[in-house]
């Protein structure tokens, strides 16, 4: 009887023992090779097709393979030639820019020529590739002057050509021409192009894709033909010094952070929650980098609907929202205050002296101030939030100027597992609004469904969303608030419509004089912050962590250390 019991026990115990052994030996094998830069991701990239890639993780992979003509300098954030040899030359008579290319090669050793650049632009224009087309549509003609010179003829002067258009990637004609030809024959050319699987993308970047084992890892090898090897760009000597790159995919942040602590990866390529900072700082093998971001997290209203169409109502909500509370508490101080749509860190374009609303006021003073703002516009309460003695009291439901009590409405937020900060903000703002009898309720919603309701169907009252990577050029102001973008799928999600703003925005695109354009952009910010269709909430810091046992030389920049400068410059530590 007993021996059978032991036999059974052994059988049951054998499975976990075996698994433990496998895991143990697998983790041992990890430490063997050197010169491999191991990067952690939270989710697997969706695609290697550059035209389809819209998720952050695919973009990370692609940024190592394809390269742009120009990029930004990490310190000054000024445009810096990358694949281009020098800054573009503008000819006002023909409205054309001339760009000279470096002596760069594709990873198969063939030369990167002006033909490739022309091909890339024509492909984007021919297929109207989303994401890219809007940046290239005003380029009338692209011409290869010689093998290493390209000329872009613009329909009209465009300020965003340099800062937005020229930082796009160049793809090789040799690989994409047959694909484009085949896709062009199909009934839906764009869909055919986007759905083409690219097993071995031919790029000009520091690394080249070697193997992608779906669900396990992505392996990249050093590109021996990378133009930057040993070259100095913007005062920095480029590598890459790592022989190989290995992407590991972790499902959850906990496991990824643990992997970093256990030296499974050298860099966790994502912004982590502030809660992990202490543990990572305490670990002798890891260190944390905090960087400013060019991001905008905000609450938006549907100004097509009552009472959100009333600027006074929106201002009152702005008064009630204690941004410093959100930054100190919800983001643990790892965020910057925002008083405009353009982040304060974007020194050149950010407007100073915008209305502060109620910064620094106490909760009760905020309620009093918001109550005054609303009372003046004809909003009433059966039991007002401030009684006869000027004391703050629990109010009854707010009554709109037309005499009807305000209906319940929801603030849509991403779900807590996607972004706990925004979900928490939703709940806190809901409680703040209740202090004024505004019947809000926070409603977390799956991200895709949320975007569809807000951007495509316009079926919402208010929402909290964010732009994780705003371009340094503030052209997004025009996208967010120009009335021509108020259409299903357009970026003017709140339906803001202001003729004065539209005029300024139209003018700002054409303004080639930077100082003039700056004045326009500052004025646009003033209008928007007066009307507050979006209430900017915070600009979170990028919190990133690296293992310091094996690699060094991470380059700090706006949006964090996961940039092309870091990845071409990090070098293995000398033993």
């Amino acid at each position, binding site marked *: 009887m007993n021996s059978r019991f032991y036999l059974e026990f052994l059988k049951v115990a054998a499975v976990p023992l075996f698994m433990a052994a496998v895991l143990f030996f697998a983790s041992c094998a990890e430490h063997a090779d050197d010169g491999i830069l191991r990067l952690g991701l939270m989710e697997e990239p969706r695609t290697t097709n550059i035209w389809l890639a819209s998720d952050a993780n695919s973009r990370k992979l692609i940024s190592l393979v394809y390269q742009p003509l120009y990029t930004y300098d990490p310190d000054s954030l000024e445009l810096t030639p990358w694949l281009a040899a020098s800054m573009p030359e503008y000819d006002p008579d023909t409205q054309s820019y001339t760009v000279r290319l470096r002596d760069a090669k594709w990873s198969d050793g063939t030369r990167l020529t002006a033909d490739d650049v022309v091909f890339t632009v024509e492909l984007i224009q021919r297929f109207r590739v989303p994401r890219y087309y809007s940046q290239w549509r005003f380029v009338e003609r692209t011409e290869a002057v010689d093998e290493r010179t390209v000329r872009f003829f613009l329909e009209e002067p465009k300020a965003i050509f340099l800062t937005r258009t020229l930082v796009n990637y160049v793809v090789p004609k040799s690989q994409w021409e047959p694909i484009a030809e085949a896709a062009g024959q199909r009934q839906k050319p764009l869909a055919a192009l986007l759905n083409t699987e690219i097993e071995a993308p031919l790029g000009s970047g520091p690394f080249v894709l070697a193997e992608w084992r779906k669900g396990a890892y992505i392996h990249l090898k050093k590109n021996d033909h990378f133009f930057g090897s040993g070259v100095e760009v913007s005062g920095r000597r480029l590598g890459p010094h790592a022989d190989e790159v290995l992407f590991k995919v972790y499902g959850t*942040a*906990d496991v990824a*952070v643990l992997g970093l602590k256990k030296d499974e990866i050298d860099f966790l390529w994502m912004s*982590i*929650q*502030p*809660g*992990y900072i*202490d*543990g990572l700082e305490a670990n002798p093998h890891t260190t944390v980098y905090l960087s400013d971001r060019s991001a905008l997290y905000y609450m938006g209203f549907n100004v097509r609907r009552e009472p959100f169409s009333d600027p006074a109502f929106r201002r009152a909500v702005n008064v009630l929202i204690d941004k410093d509370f959100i930054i*100190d*508490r*919800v983001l*643990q*101080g790892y965020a910057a205050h925002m008083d405009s749509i353009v982040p304060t860190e974007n020194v050149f374009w950010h407007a100073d002296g915008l209305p502060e609303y109620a910064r620094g006021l106490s909760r009760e003073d905020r309620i009093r101030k918001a109550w005054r703002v609303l009372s003046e516009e004809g909003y009433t309460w059966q039991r007002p939030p401030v009684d006869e003695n000027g004391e703050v009291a629990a109010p009854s439901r707010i009554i709109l100027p037309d005499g009807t009590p305000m209906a319940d409405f929801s603030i849509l937020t991403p*779900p*807590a*597992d*996607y972004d*706990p900060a925004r*979900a*928490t903000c*939703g*709940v*806190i703002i*809901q*409680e703040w609004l209740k202090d004024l009898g505004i019947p809000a*309720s*926070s*409603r*977390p*919603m*799956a991200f895709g*469904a949320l975007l569809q309701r807000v951007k495509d169907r316009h079926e919402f009252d208010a929402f909290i969303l964010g732009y994780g990577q705003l371009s340094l050029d503030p052209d997004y102001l025009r996208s967010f608030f120009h009335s021509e973008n108020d259409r299903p799928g357009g970026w003017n999600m709140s339906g803001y419509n202001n003729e004065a703003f539209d005029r300024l925005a139209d003018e700002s695109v054409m303004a080639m004089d930077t100082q003039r354009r700056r004045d326009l952009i500052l004025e646009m910010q003033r209008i928007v912050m007066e009307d507050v269709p979006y209430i900017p909430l915070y600009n979170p810091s990028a919190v990133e962590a690296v293992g310091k046992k094996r690699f060094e030389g991470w380059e700090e920049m706006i949006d964090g250390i996961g940039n092309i400068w870091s990845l071409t410059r990090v070098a293995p530590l000398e033993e």
Partner: protein
Amino acid sequence: MKAIAAAGTGKNETRSFRMQAFLEGWSLFYENIVGRIGLYLLILFGLMALASYIPPLIDPMYHPMTGVDPDISYASAPSWRHWLGTDNIGRDIFTQLLTGARVAFLVGISAAFISIVIGTLLGMIAGYGGRVLDSVLMRFADMIMVMPSLLVILLLSVLFGQLSIWIIVMLIALFRWPAVARVIRSQTLSLKQRPFIDMARVAGASHVRILFRHILPNVLPMALLYMTFRVTSAIIVEAALAFLGFGDPNTVSWGMMLQWVWKTGHMFQAPWWLLPPGICISLITLAFYMMGRAMEEVLDPRLRKTKGPDYAAS
């Protein structure tokens, strides 16, 4: 008392008989150490739920959802001011824990009650009606029973956005009645054959009267027993949903607390935040389960441990 009852009307007689039965059951239940522990635990949680109304009255910073300590804006360890510490935005964890007990009772008992009502009704009707009605209802119950309820509720909340706590309660109830219905049906089937039902029928009682006056009182103990088990599963489903991020964001439940500690990256940094809700979920489900086990012994004499030597051989 007894004498008066005996001399009085029949109604009083049955009441005293029921009282007698209840007291007998109670003493059996109370003898059972498992049941007693479960009961004490439940009383403790009940007191916690009641006490949850007190802290916000002391100071607004003890409001479980919106109250924050003015001086603490990070996850702080237990102190005199915050007996179980604070979460990352400075909210008191002890208050959240008390409120969580309230939500657990609310979710557990209301979901279990709804599923018991549905299960008992359908079970009785199926068992009493027999034939086609029985087959249809039981096949329907089978269909619901094989559905993985947690998965379906997860899918629903993904489809319809966030669900409110009452919708979650309804969904749990709607997925958890079939097991009850099956048990009640089998009870009804055997009760139906008993002479007193025949007598009632001969006396001209309608089906509804037979069902509710004669069958229901006899299946009720069984239904209540099953209710304790349903409470357990309802609490666990709610906690799992909340932990996975599909709970009601406006409710401070234990599962929600676990979700916050997980998603804000404090899982391994703040044990004072992680452990209490976890322990409470385990203990409250254990308490209901233990109660259920003890009640089962009261209802089913075969389960009783007998002390007499006569039965030692069996």
